[in-house]
């Protein structure tokens, strides 16, 4: 594992219409580490994710990927990241399998599809349109793409929302395997992970504090 952090955030802040949506924030993420962003609603978690993905430009501060500003290495940075947010990017009129294939970054063989579906316990749902699934089931489809993912960085905004205990266990399993192969995760959640060691990071309205 290299000593240099894979992601460094320095004095990152975001202001809009004279309101501070994200107070100046500093942190770094090492390879093989999971960073748990905590904070009450309105502390800027969603804003932070959007800044990390490059959807927003910060009013102050910088995000670096392997030492380079993400504005400079946009292509290589975005190639190494995967984001699963509140909105699952699931198409209702498409079947579970069709959605899974689209969300996967690589072409999937039929075995891989079946394996992914059984891991999220949606075995018999391959040909069911996602419109007919419950919120928890849809979230499982969205998270199934984590299974075959080969990218280094996972950004997960509330990955455990709407999941039952089994679903949470599956997600934690994915996250652990990912960390073991040298991947890194930044995630936000109102609950702690039971089995995975995480570093916590608290966002507050005034500024950020390490836990």
């Amino acid at each position, binding site marked *: 594992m290299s000593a240099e952090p894979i992601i460094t955030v320095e004095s990152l802040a975001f202001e809009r219409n004279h309101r501070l949506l994200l107070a100046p924030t500093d942190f770094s993420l090492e390879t093989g580490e999971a960073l748990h962003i905590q904070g009450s609603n309105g502390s800027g978690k969603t804003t932070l994710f*959007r800044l990390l*993905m*490059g*959807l*927003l430009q910060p009013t102050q501060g910088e995000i670096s990927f392997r030492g380079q500003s993400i504005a400079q290495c*946009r*292509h*290589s*940075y*975005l*190639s*190494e*990241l*995967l*984001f699963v*947010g*509140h*909105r*699952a*990017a*699931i*198409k*209702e*009129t*498409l079947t579970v399998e*069709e959605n899974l294939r*689209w*969300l996967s*970054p*690589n*072409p999937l063989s039929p075995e891989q599809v079946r394996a992914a579906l059984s891991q999220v316990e949606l075995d018999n749902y391959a040909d069911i*349109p996602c419109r007919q699934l419950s919120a928890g089931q849809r979230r499982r489809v969205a998270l199934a793409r984590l299974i075959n993912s080969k*990218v280094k960085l996972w950004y997960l905004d509330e990955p455990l929302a709407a999941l039952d205990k089994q679903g949470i266990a599956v997600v934690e399993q994915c996250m652990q395997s990912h960390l073991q192969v040298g991947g890194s995760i930044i995630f936000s959640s109102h609950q702690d992970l039971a089995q995975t060691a995480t570093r916590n990071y608290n966002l507050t309205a005034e500024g950020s504090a390490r836990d």
Partner: protein
Amino acid sequence: MTSGYHSGFIAHFSRDVLLHYRRRSDLARPLVFFIITSTLVPLGVVPEPATLATLAPGIIWIIALLATLLSIENLFAEDWQDGTLEQMLISPNLLVMPILGKVAAHWLMVGLPLTLISPLIAMMLYLPAEGLLPMLLSLALGTAALSLVGAVGAALTLPLQQGGMLLALLVMPLYTPILIFGSATVQSAIDGLVWSGTLATLTAVLALAIALCPLAIIGALRLSSEY
């Protein structure tokens, strides 16, 4: 998407065609609009063949334009709401091809069907026979340009509620050259003049739209996703 797998024109084109097809009852709407509104013309003007024949090229074109305009409003709405747009915008690859794929799918499922039923309308409005082929060709190319320019408007009004009327307001001035060249193609043919030049100009406008509209659309989509 993190690899070239989904960055291409074909991937997005076929996915969008599939999505349109899954809601195929919605596909009939622009066509029914086309037919119903064309019926308003003889009812509102006069059912006399001579008068209708004079108006036919322009009227058919205008109604096809309105039908395209109405159908383009929600082009990006679903993607924006379910998070697909977000995923597209964090793709490392250029968005030009995905956007072109999406608009091409819209043309295939809306513009082309409108073109194909235009002979029916042409018959109802007594369009002279010489005008039929130019009508088909000009509509086929023109609706593609209309979809592209309309998509720019759709992207700009994406975060707004009730953007429909505003979309029409923004896009209508930009539609005027397409309308002019499109209906003039038909009119020239009816008048016995050479119409290939006008059709070529329309094609040039389409080519320009293909080159430039995606840039405006991507800029507007990035802007919309910031809010």
